[in-house]
């Protein structure tokens, strides 16, 4: 039971991270590899807000959300918009976002140094609950609630609001969307902002969950994020949620029953099987090729 809950907690963070990833891919067809750098940066920023700003953990979350959104706008502006009309936009976008991620990580190193950082002692409330005989901290509950709330909010926004309709229109066909009066550039920018804001919150929650922030934490979750969005179905939001939870659970149980050194084989074994059997992912739609 304890393992099940742990799997859900970590899985919800994976899902939140992956949803940001898949949002950009699903709507804009671009893989933003600066996303993991946002994840790492926000963890450091979150720690600094608590440590120096004296904010409580919860007050830091919205600020980090805004921080992520701003970084997302920068990423779109610098790494993606200049490339949008190029024939090789796909490859070039990958590389330019890798470059931007490298710059971001270098800046983190400048400001925070190369060492692992932690939240100041006493920043976590030590309230604990007992659920079906398993220990759950308040922090873990908050992680789950925040993740789920953001995902529900995002789903509502994409399916019900005007902005969300614009996003889906751009996803279908950017040219037609433009002809019909959708401001494609603005929708694109907002998509990046939301995506990075989600990634940022995921970064802080991750840092809270394990109480560390490292420069390499983005790279560590990057592979998992990629696996999750493939398993769930590229561009599918509920797919990323399910994929994230699945991966969280698989990891926790793999550690317990097989050994920690094989964890990544589980994730990628799963990924590989899915790709072979159902390339569009669990919940992805198969794109019809145009002739």
């Amino acid at each position, binding site marked *: 039971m304890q393992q099940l809950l742990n799997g859900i907690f970590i899985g919800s963070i994976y899902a939140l991270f992956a949803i940001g990833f898949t949002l950009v*891919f699903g709507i804009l*067809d671009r*893989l933003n590899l600066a996303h993991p750098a946002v994840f790492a940066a926000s963890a450091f920023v979150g720690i600094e807000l608590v440590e120096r700003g004296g904010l409580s953990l919860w007050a830091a979350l919205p600020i980090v959300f805004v921080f992520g959104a701003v970084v997302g706008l920068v990423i779109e502006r*610098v*790494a993606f918009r*200049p*490339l949008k009309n*190029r*024939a*090789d*936009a*796909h*490859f*070039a976008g*990958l*590389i*330019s976002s*890798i*470059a*931007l*991620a*490298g*710059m971001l*990580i*270098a*800046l983190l*190193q*400048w400001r925070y140094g190369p060492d692992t950082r932690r939240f100041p002692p006493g920043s976590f409330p030590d309230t604990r609950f007992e659920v079906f005989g398993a220990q759950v901290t308040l922090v873990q509950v908050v992680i789950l609630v925040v993740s789920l709330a953001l995902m529900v909010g995002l789903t509502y926004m994409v399916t019900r609001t005007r902005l969300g309709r614009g996003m889906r229109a751009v996803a279908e*066909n*950017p*040219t*037609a969307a433009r*002809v019909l009066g959708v401001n494609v550039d603005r929708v694109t920018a907002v998509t990046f902002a939301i995506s990075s804001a989600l990634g940022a919150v995921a970064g802080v929650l991750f840092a809270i969950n394990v109480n560390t922030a490292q420069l390499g934490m983005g*790279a560590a979750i*990057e*592979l998992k994020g*990629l*696996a999750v969005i*493939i398993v769930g179905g*590229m561009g599918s939001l509920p797919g990323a949620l399910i994929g994230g939870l699945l991966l969280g659970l698989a990891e926790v149980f793999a550690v317990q029953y097989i050994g920690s*050194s*094989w964890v*990544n*084989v589980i994730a*990628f*074994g799963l*990924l*590989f099987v899915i*790709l*072979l059997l159902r*390339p569009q992912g669990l919940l992805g739609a198969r794109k019809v*090729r*145009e*002739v």
Partner: protein
Amino acid sequence: MLDQYATTLTFIALGAIFAYSFYAVLIAGQLSLGQAGFASLAAFSGAYLAPADVADVPALLIAVAIGMSVGALGAVVLGLPTMHLRGVFLAIATLGFAEAVRVVLLNQEWTGGAQGLGVPRVLTVGMAWTALALVAYWFWRMGRSRYGRALEAIREDELAARSMGIDVGRHRLAAFITAGAVAGLYGVLYAYYVRLIAPNDFDFVAAVEGLVTAVVGGSTMFLGPLLGSGFQTIVPEIQRAVGVEAGWIRPFLASLLLLVVILFLPGGLASLIPRRTRMPSGDGDDSAAGLAGRRHPAAGEPVVTLAGLSKEYGGVHAVRGVDLEIRAGEVVGLIGPNGAGKTTLVNMVSGLVPPSSGSATVLGTTIGSTPVHRIAAAGVSRTFQHSKLFNRLSALENVLVGAHLVSRPTFLRRLLWLPSARRDERAALRQAARCLERVGLSELAGSRAEALSYGDQRRLEIARALASDPSLLILDEPAAGMNHVEAARLSELIRSLARDGLTILFIEHNVGMVLQTCTRVVVLNFGEVIASGAPDEVAADPAVIEAYLGSADDDAGESPLAGDARSGATAAGAGDAPPDAVANVRPGAAGTLDTPDTSRDAT
């Protein structure tokens, strides 16, 4: 003097070889990150299996042989199940493979696990650069061979490449295997240089670095990976030399430079090197050595036989129950209002779309499960409604790809500089030049296809389709976007092709031109054939007039269509059409919006 820079130079060579393993697939438009896995497998198996009781250099050579075989084998094993994946999906699947390899090797005893495996240092700067030169030579000779062009065509437009008769699956797999072998070479050389290899040397970061090197250098020119590796290796060295302190500044500047290169040099560093565009040489003295000819069906033999052919898209009957026979030498015009199913019909005939029911035989090939490239090989060639040119290739290269089916493979002979390869390439060039001349594009042979005007692009598509010496030529709205002078010229071209014995099936909205050009007109409406026959009969058919202009009752006078038809038909009979005989009538087109082709498959 060289000693001082030996380490840097060796790493440039190693980095370049690894980047070539990415280049090998990027040139075919495939994004793979599995090379780290191939390199890892090769490094460990090569170092582990190489005999210990021979001298250093033979041991290295044996290890290289083992490593390259293992890498190629790994590519086959990974490639067969994943070749249907595209773009990012392929990248992530191959990345998954590389990660799995890393974790498995990490948990093996013979690899030394995380501690790694000790390997003697055998590799010298000279050896590394020799290996690099061989790899670069391979890709240099590949560039202008038939095989190299086919890979580039697949990168630019896979569907069009298929229609030119290129077996995309086999070519992609071949590119993948090359990548595996080159990555294997890199793995072994790396192992014999750094003394100690661990599975973590071939992780995700390493794979991304290899990809970045290849893209920064430029993935469309064979020198790209070398330039990329030089750039990636020298930038940190220069920073150290000029005294930039370690820490955050170095990675920051390196990333910044990478960003600048990718944003401002679209073709990578290699785009700084001017690229010679090849032109057909004027001396056509050895004209005897032409391309392999094709036996065309004699006039009157059936070329296309359709029986009850239907296509449904989820309840929508795009085409239903079409029976049609086209005989050799005919010029058949397929007309009908928008959405009548014309394009679906020709897509079925050319094998791009399998029919839902009914049967079709085209040049002796049964349509349905036959792959597109086989149908092309039987002698079918086509153009597309929305131009599907190989955009970043020159006009001449586009047509050379079109000649894929009638030219002979030249890559292996080019590696050995055999004169026969040169002869074959020249013959293909002449064929391409002739096709360009025929459509009047000789002057623009060296221009990139994407830089041509719309009308020129349509003509280039026709030249490309002609290059394969087809028996059946299918044109999908060839005159779209042409003015009446150009359309009249196109009409003359089509008739001259028919005189050469080609059978032609073409869709066109310019009814005047169709009536003037064709020997037979087939009218499609709501997926069914409503009329078929000689141009003037069809133009007078009440059913056709109704399909185009609505009910015939309120149209007491002479319909514009019929009038146009009459003048067109007489003009065709007289043989000297005034340029304005072809009125650009597009009935049924009003109020429809053809969205441009925005299929975003980047690979």
